């Protein structure tokens, strides 16, 4: 859980940028021309998402369909990625595993982002003693090694998607609140926050209407970087047998 120490410059005030070339086709052409690496990455990502979303339609076999006569086979035309020790089709399970990983990653990151924004916005907006108390709590929380905490909780509660979402969401959410807090601190200094106070707006209104829209770029980054992190951790946990419960396919578990 790495947290960048300087976050004050992340927020750039200013207008949402308009695409120079209208239309999806124009945008894609522009992207390939100006950011070829980004375009390749985007293409790979979209292919994965496509297979994940349509896993159930694309999979040639059922994910738990066993064929004991075809155990541990190598790749062939009938089994593209071969079969595992009880004759399940690995390609089908990889597709389905992508789906499971993606759902867990998106839900966990969304939960983590909500936690980060709630803690970061309150600490940053109110500042003072409340902020100090929250920051010391975050410090203390972050001294726990992630994996150890996960292993302890899962060995008590048993493996499962819900456990992973809640625990990883809290872990990343509390850590990520630092980044949100930094962004809030810099936005709060703008006079329009004071203007809102001066007309009598309450703190909920100010955070919702004035602070959050202006830290949206930071929140989006927090959300997206968490997705990849969660996929990796979830794979690691499943590999250790502590992730998603057994017959369900995950990339780590296979």
């Amino acid at each position, binding site marked *: 859980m790495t947290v960048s120490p300087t976050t004050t410059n992340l927020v750039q005030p200013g*207008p949402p940028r308009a695409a120079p070339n209208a239309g999806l086709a124009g945008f894609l052409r522009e992207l390939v021309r100006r950011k070829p690496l980004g375009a390749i990455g985007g293409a790979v990502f979209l292919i994965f998402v496509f297979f994940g979303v349509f896993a159930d339609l694309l999979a040639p076999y059922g994910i738990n369909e066993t064929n004991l006569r075809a155990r541990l086979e190598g790749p062939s035309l009938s089994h593209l990625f071969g079969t595992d020790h009880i004759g399940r089709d690995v390609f089908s399970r990889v597709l389905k595993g992508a789906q499971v990983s993606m759902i867990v990653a998106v839900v966990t990151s969304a939960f983590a982002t909500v936690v980060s924004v709630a803690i970061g916005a309150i600490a940053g907006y109110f500042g003072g003693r409340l902020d100090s108390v929250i920051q010391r709590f975050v410090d203390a929380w972050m001294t726990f090694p992630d994996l150890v905490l996960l292993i302890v909780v899962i060995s008590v509660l048993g493996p499962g998607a819900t456990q992973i979402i809640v625990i990883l969401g809290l872990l990343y959410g509390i850590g990520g609140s630092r980044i949100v807090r930094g962004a809030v601190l810099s936005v709060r200094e703008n006079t329009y926050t004071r*203007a809102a106070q001066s007309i*009598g707006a309450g703190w909920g*209104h100010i955070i919702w209407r004035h602070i959050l829209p*202006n830290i949206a770029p930071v929140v989006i980054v927090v959300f997206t970087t968490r997705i990849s992190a969660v996929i990796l951790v979830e794979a690691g946990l499943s590999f250790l047998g502590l992730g998603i419960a057994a017959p369900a396919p995950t990339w780590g578990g296979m």
Partner: protein
Amino acid sequence: MTEIISNPNAVTPATETHPLLRVENLAVHFPIRAGPLATVSGHVKAVDGVSFDLHAGETLSIVGESGCGKTTCAMAIARLQTPTDGRISFAGQDITDLESRRLRPVRRRMQIVFQDPFSSLNPRMKVSDIVAEPLVVHGLAGEPDVLRRRVGDLLALVGLSPEMGRRYPHQFSGGQRQRISIARALALEPDLIICDEAVSALDVSIQAQILNLLMDLQQRLGLAYLFISHDLSVVRHISHKVAVMYLGRIVELADRDALFNDPQHPYTQALLAAAPVPDPDRASPYLPLKGEAPNARNPPSGCPFHPRCPHAISQCSTDVPALRQVGNRSIACPVVAPA
């Protein structure tokens, strides 16, 4: 425009005992932190014992050099900055320590136009939403149609076209943004508007237009203004009373004509002498300012103005002069107005 007039509490009955705004001994000191442990090594006395009364329907201007504490004073009065000392009363009610829930009705009647037009408007909000926000916050928005017309009226009032409400602040110039701020301040039809350099960013013709608008609204609605400016000709045009500030203190406070025609405090005289005069033959008889404006972190002892004062006597470097009523004005100077 017509809706602007229908404000039931526009005019507060102000008696001699109940000015609309009373500021008593207001002080705002900022701690100076230094060193690795950020220990407090001193204080900037940005505002240090300011007192004045402002009556309904009146304009009181505060003038003074950059850094003398005008904005800080305004922030403290609007309860956006916690005062170190002193009392602030609005319409007879002490608001110095009012908690935010009880402050809401006061905020409805006291609006502020901020000095910096570039950071005082939220870049992610449409101008129409910015102007409508005070009404929304106070639950006075009403039907969407009515609100839209109301916002259009407010924009028209400050010389912007209602269609401009669909745009975002970055699509406006500094002067236009300042007018948006003014429209926002007028939305609630307050009793007091604090204008912190509200027209300084505007060009002369728009400035005149806005000043006339402010004065017109004052006549019709009985608005009071606390008008902060460094532009003496603007101040002379709009004010009933003028307070001259120097390093966190008021040094002279008088009716406009008394102050401009017969300045008494050496600093007021110097300030007027520094202002350009339309007729060079009538050049000011007063001595211009010498020396640098002192640092607010490390103010001179005694009267803060004494190192630059042509009339300073030995007492000036030791005793801080109090603001004293002399004739038609209040003045803080032992030479001009001895105890």
